[in-house]
């Protein structure tokens, strides 16, 4: 078993100064959404961190998440993180293929049993495993096998975290999330379609420094998924003032008003998009004039339509209401006719009241 070097040793070997390291830790604190004052503690933790082995599994996915992390705006930081870890298996990035690749995975598992980190990208087809296999083995098998010796699992992207697009109705492959299958390991969900690159690296950094971060009900690190976009959105004041874009090309849209009525899912979507933003902090969908799709939420694809406001019912309620009016009118008329019948019958049976029979016979 190879002895993995401490990060501080790796850095010293690269001639990185302490000041540079502190600068890096300050940035890392920011990336991890931790208070800046925690930078020295991050430094301490990193100094003691050993390079863990990471196995990256790709199941039913579009590789968008890998694209996102490799195209991240801050290559140096990611490089440093990846230098910190030992990416022993990543079928998109690694040079090895076929049996060699599988051998690498098995070797990494054997050497680091109980300590390695599994990163999963993509959902797992359970109804029909044939939809996604590699080396002739189903995703389900590979996941179970690999997870068995893992210290923890990080799901990257909404597919791995919650089933994502493959899981959208009618879910032909029977796609499932990692957490549906693996229940005995810590799972850190990093949803998003794709997740923000620095969020992915931030979660990895947190795992390296402080272990499994604090998670919300849906297994997401609270540091990145604690708030809904709506609460951190710079367009929020327009929502509060009642100023909305009604269409994509009206005055409100041009003036940058709230996109709620265009279907923005910001009010129910947990993510740091509004603060961290994308492409190196340039913008995020709402700033670019498009409503949030809610991609960090389970079943976001089945939320009733991207352009349907959250307050609008999802069913064909108009037809049902119209039907209801019709049924009500018919039944009501029938009921009223019965009532008229009661009246007519009463009139027919009318017993004339005479002044002499007002008193009840005793």
């Amino acid at each position, binding site marked *: 078993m190879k002895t993995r070097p401490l990060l501080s040793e790796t850095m010293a070997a690269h001639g990185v100064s302490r000041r540079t390291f502190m600068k890096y830790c300050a940035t890392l604190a920011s990336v991890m959404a931790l208070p800046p004052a925690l930078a020295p503690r991050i430094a301490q933790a990193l100094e003691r961190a050993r390079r863990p082995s990471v196995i990256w599994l790709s199941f039913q996915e579009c590789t968008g998440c890998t694209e996102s992390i490799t195209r991240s705006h801050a290559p140096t930081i990611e490089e440093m993180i990846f230098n910190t870890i030992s990416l022993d298996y990543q079928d998109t990035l690694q040079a090895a293929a076929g049996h060699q690749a599988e051998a690498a995975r098995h070797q990494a598992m054997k050497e680091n049993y109980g300590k390695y980190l599994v990163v999963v990208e993509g959902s797992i087809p359970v109804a029909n495993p044939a939809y996604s296999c590699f080396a002739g083995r189903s995703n389900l098998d590979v996941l179970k096998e690999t997870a068995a010796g893992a210290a923890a699992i990080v799901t990257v992207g909404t597919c791995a975290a919650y089933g994502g697009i493959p899981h959208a109705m009618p879910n032909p492959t029977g796609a499932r999330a990692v957490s549906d299958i693996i229940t005995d390991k810590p799972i850190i969900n990093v949803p998003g379609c794709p997740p923000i690159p620095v969020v992915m690296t931030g979660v990895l950094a947190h795992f390296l420094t402080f272990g499994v971060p604090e998670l919300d009900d849906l297994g997401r690190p609270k540091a990145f998924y604690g708030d809904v976009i709506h609460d951190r959105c710079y367009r929020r004041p327009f929502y509060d003032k009642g100023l909305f874009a009604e269409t994509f090309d009206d005055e409100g849209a041009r003036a940058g008003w709230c996109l709620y009525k265009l279907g923005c899912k910001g009010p129910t979507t947990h993510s740091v998009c509004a603060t961290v933003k994308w492409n190196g902090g340039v913008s995020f969908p709402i700033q670019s004039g498009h409503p949030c799709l809610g991609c960090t939420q389970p079943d976001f694809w089945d939320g009733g339509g991207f352009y349907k406001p959250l307050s609008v019912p999802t069913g064909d309620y108009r037809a049902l209401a119209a039907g209801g009016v019709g049924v009500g009118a018919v*039944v009501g008329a029938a009921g009223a006719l019965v009532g008229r019948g009661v009246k007519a019958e009463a009139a027919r049976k009318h017993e004339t009241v*005479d*002044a*002499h*029979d*007002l*008193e009840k016979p005793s």
Partner: protein
Amino acid sequence: MTASLERGLNALREQIDAPVASFFTSCVHCGLCAEACVFYRETEDPRYIPIRKLDPMRRLWRREFTLFGRIGAMLGLVRPVTDADLGEWETLVYDSCTLCGRCTLVCPVGNDITLMIRKMREGMSAAGHTPKELIGAAVRHVETNSLMGNLAPALRAQVKRSVAETGIDIGFDQPGVDYMVILSAQETMDYPEILSSMARIFKKAGISWTIASDGFEATNVGVQIGSRDIARILVARVVEAAERLGVKGVVSPECGHAYQALRWEGPNLMGRAFNFEVVHIVELLDRLRAEGKLPTKGMESRRVTFHDPCQINRRGGIDREPRRLMALVASDFVETDDAGAMNWCCGGGGGVGANERATKLRLTAFKRKKAQLEKVNPDKLITMCAYCHHTIEEAMEEYHMEIEVQGLTDFVATYLDDEPAGA
């Protein structure tokens, strides 16, 4: 035919229509009708909440006229209306309601509660739950010509006295005249001065009029009891007399429910529109005033106030007419609080005054009128309903109040300028 629960419920069923259904559907149990009700106000007893007085009728409506209620009835959720219920409700429907109509005007959802009490009384009377004094009055009125028994001799005597007093002839049964005048028994017996007053005013205005010997009684105990069958018999006497005499119109006297019975219920009881006009004496006086045919001389200088009879103002639509007449003859006219359409009831209408067991309640209810009067402290109270006049006088005696009460027609006639010109 005998009074029975089935006859009563049947009569109630006949009364339920779209307005009743909408009223019961709309009620939100806010209780504001109670705040408007003179009986609740003066007793603060929640039994007198107007809408509660209709509970048996509401249950009948739910059980038999709504789908959900029918289902509820099958499931035993809506109790049927029993004879005991009606018995229990008799005092609420007859003793603690004068059909004054204040609740109808305050109900925020617009329920005409008064109309429903009137309808409810149809069922109550048919089921044999009518106060005995009202039954007696009905029997007397049906059997003779007035609720007080045969009033024909008394009326002739009053007419004779009036003719002697004014020198103006009053003819019985004269066909083709302008108006046929009817009188309430209260006027015939207690306030006959109205005859002289009308005689002088009509003479001055050049109006010819007559009294029908077989249709002179204006009151209609059938309306108070809530029996269309009896009310029809009584109103038909007047209608038939007017039609036989071929008069232009019938003058409804200073009597609240009489105006209600002939003017608003009459055509519906008879099932046909009349070929003569029904006009309230005060409406007619105001018309004469407008035409300049009511010259007056002098004015009452003492402080005078006015009591609006419920059936004539709130339920009858005569609100501005009496005030224009008051302005003509009273120089110190003050309105009480809530005067006009929201004026407080004297407490004696709707058959309550005749109902012995309601006496205490009626006198309690009068405290509201008393407070109104005490606030403006008038020398004189004018009204335009002989029964209000009677109720107020009686109650004032009870409370040792000394305010003169006078009918409006009589009051106006006091200042009529009917001396021959140049005399």
